[in-house]
């Protein structure tokens, strides 16, 4: 019985992240529109776009190889698995033993690798441009993410997310400087990972300034739907991750009943809405930075992650 319920909750969460991801994207767009005095598209518009794309014909460039056709599925699968591993409203789910922060970083790295390959595969100038910029950012973003993982793992004694969440919610954790650094660093990395302002502009039509969009310019139909869905999932994953690690309150544990799970799910929704609103506000308040400033920006995240780890080491080891 316990196993069935636990599998059910895990299944519900996996379905829920996919169902909610485009809604979250739509919500961020809506808030941004209202902040710039526009009506904005309905919150469900990203879902409608994805369904429309799924019905449309997929045009593939003549010069594209199997890499180009396979990449969208790899990207979607890797991102979905990563998103499903992050505890959203319930901890210690069936698959949580594998919900390791390092695994999530690796899955996202795999998706990024596939996307960059696909961008270069068709041989257009924009795909190569986007791929080279993405890799430039990744060389700083990925080590920064790993250092953040180390900070959290040192503080919680494990790199497994449910354990981290439990430790963070626990009374003995308290306020720590290194955790604050990790939060700031994770936010910076998340902005870069998701291609948000100030690193990339998801709403731009200017090919020359694109990073993520430049790599997917040649995609259409179901391929594009997969990539759009994966991008939405990544945003949801990032916000859920920040929520589960730094604001782990009100999450349901395995033994809890249905009401507790529902309350926890509602609270998770509230956390996402809060995170989405904060993102929309910050995107309205700053301009995009020059491409070559992004490594500096991510370098801050790297340094904060490093400092956080060192501080924990020093306070522990001495």
């Amino acid at each position: 019985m316990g196993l069935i319920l636990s599998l059910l909750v895990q299944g519900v969460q996996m379905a829920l992240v996919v169902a909610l991801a485009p809604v979250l994207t739509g919500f961020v767009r809506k808030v941004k529109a209202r902040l710039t005095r526009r009506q904005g598209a309905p919150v469900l518009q990203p879902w409608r776009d994805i369904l429309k794309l799924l019905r449309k014909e997929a045009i593939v460039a003549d010069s594209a190889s199997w890499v180009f056709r396979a990449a969208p599925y790899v990207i979607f699968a890797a991102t979905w698995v990563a998103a499903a591993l992050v505890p959203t409203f319930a901890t210690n789910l069936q698959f949580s033993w594998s919900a390791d922060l390092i695994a999530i970083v690796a899955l996202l790295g795999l998706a990024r690798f596939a996307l960059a390959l696909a961008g270069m595969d068709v041989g257009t100038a924009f795909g190569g441009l986007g791929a080279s910029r993405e890799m430039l950012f990744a060389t700083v973003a990925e080590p920064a993410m790993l250092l953040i993982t180390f900070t959290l793992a040192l503080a919680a004694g494990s790199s497994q997310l449910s354990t981290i969440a439990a430790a963070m919610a626990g009374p003995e954790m308290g306020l720590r400087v290194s955790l604050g650094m990790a939060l700031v660093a994770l936010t910076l990395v998340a902005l870069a990972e998701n291609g948000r302002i100030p690193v990339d502009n998801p709403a731009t039509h200017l090919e020359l300034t694109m990073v993520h969009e430049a790599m997917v310019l040649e995609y259409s139909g179901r391929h594009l739907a997969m990539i759009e869905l994966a991008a939405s999932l990544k945003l949801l994953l990032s916000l859920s991750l920040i929520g589960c690690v730094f604001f782990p309150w009100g999450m349901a544990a395995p033994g809890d009943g249905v009401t507790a799970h529902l309350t926890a799910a509602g609270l998770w929704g509230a956390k996402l809405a809060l995170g989405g609103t904060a993102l929309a506000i910050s995107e309205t308040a700053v301009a995009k930075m020059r491409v070559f400033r992004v490594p500096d920006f991510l370098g801050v995240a790297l340094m904060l992650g490093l400092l956080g780890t060192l501080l924990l080491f020093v306070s522990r080891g001495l």
Partner: protein
Amino acid sequence: MDLTPLSNADLRTAPLRRDHCTLSDWSSACAALDAGRLTLLALWGEAAAVRMALLDEGARRIGLLTLPAETAFPSVGRHHPPAQRLERAVADLWGLVPAGAPDARPWLGHGAPYPFLPVEGDSLHQVPVGPVHAGIIEPGHFRFTAQGETVVRLEERLGYVHKGIEALMTGAVLARGAELAGRTSGDSCVAYQWAFAQAAEAGLACPAPPRAEHIRAVLAELERLANHLGDIGAICNDAAFAMMLAQCSILREGLLRATATAFGHRMGKDVIAPGGVSRDLTPEGVAAIRAALTAVAARLPRLVALYDGTASLQDRTVGTGRLSPALARQFGAGGFVGRAAGRSFDTRRSLPYGPYAELSFVVPARDEGDVNARVWLRIEEAQASLGLLDQLLSGLPGGPVQSGLVPSGPAEGIGLVEGFRGDVFVHLALGPDGRIARCHLRDPSWFQWPLLEAAIEGNIIADFPLCNKSFNCSYSGHDL
């Protein structure tokens, strides 16, 4: 040198004499251009002649040269690079070959495969952009040669929106010509129609009544203000700062609606016609414009503070896309492109027309030549336009708005008007039947597009949209 020198009074009111110049006049003009004593204003072809308009900025005079040519003429571009694209267009449209020109490729003609300039060097790669772009903008091809992200060379290829406006003009009646002029570049329809009307009125020596000239200036300043506001927002939006675009768009929309209320068309199209204006300004129209201006005057300072106070935005605009003052002077760049790079020329002040001689306004100028300077130029010009509109609306003279101009010919005249982009030049020749024999319209973009190629050099590719928007050259007006 025997060029027909025109003082401002001649330019605005007197019909032109059509004297042919000699080859030596032509080459001494080339030498003067090369030495920087004169600025090239326009160069265009006719049946069996090439014509060149020159500006003496110091003496504030305009000269006109007409060189008879059957198949070829001595190249000006060989001595003075700004003339090169004009000559290539003359060769495409009139079959008159510039002899000795350094660049013999076609410009407006797209019949044959186009050889881009060769590029040699290590680890260079090319990025072709356009002619169809992702946004709702006009078509143009940009060929970047880059080393990593740094632009080594940009080569433009234009002419995709050649509509044959000058050919349509030939043989048309004056009213039809005015309509066509207003459709040369949609955002500058007032400037074009005013310049066209000036050329017709000068050629027929029949000036428009003062009230009509005042109403024209109201339209022109509204156009300038609306376009500058749109540009300021669009430049910031290219740096992903959508807030500025939203706020500026609201102000621009208010101005367009007021223009529609006062003149029956959002862009003020077809209000200006040779002989005056087709529509008088009513007290209700004045009230609508004043209301829109009050809204702009109230909000503009806050938007300027937002622009100036957003560090992330300043980081993108300051120092980006720098244009050297020497190049701006050599090319005679008009508008904010020239004035942001130290070339302080504004037709409204240097060769005043209409009511501008009696109005007080500042012509801002800066030396930095970067994107930030071009944004600031627009801000300051918008503020100056607010002041001008206030003076114009308070001091509207009475009287008729039409002079009852009767087209007769042959006659020739020149019009020069400061549009929001820069000086719009129109040369109009009427035939014996009063119909248009030849009309040439020169957009300020002819001398700004080449400078964009220079300004982007050494910048990174990702900054091109920002530079391009800060230049905001016209495709349609350039391609004609």
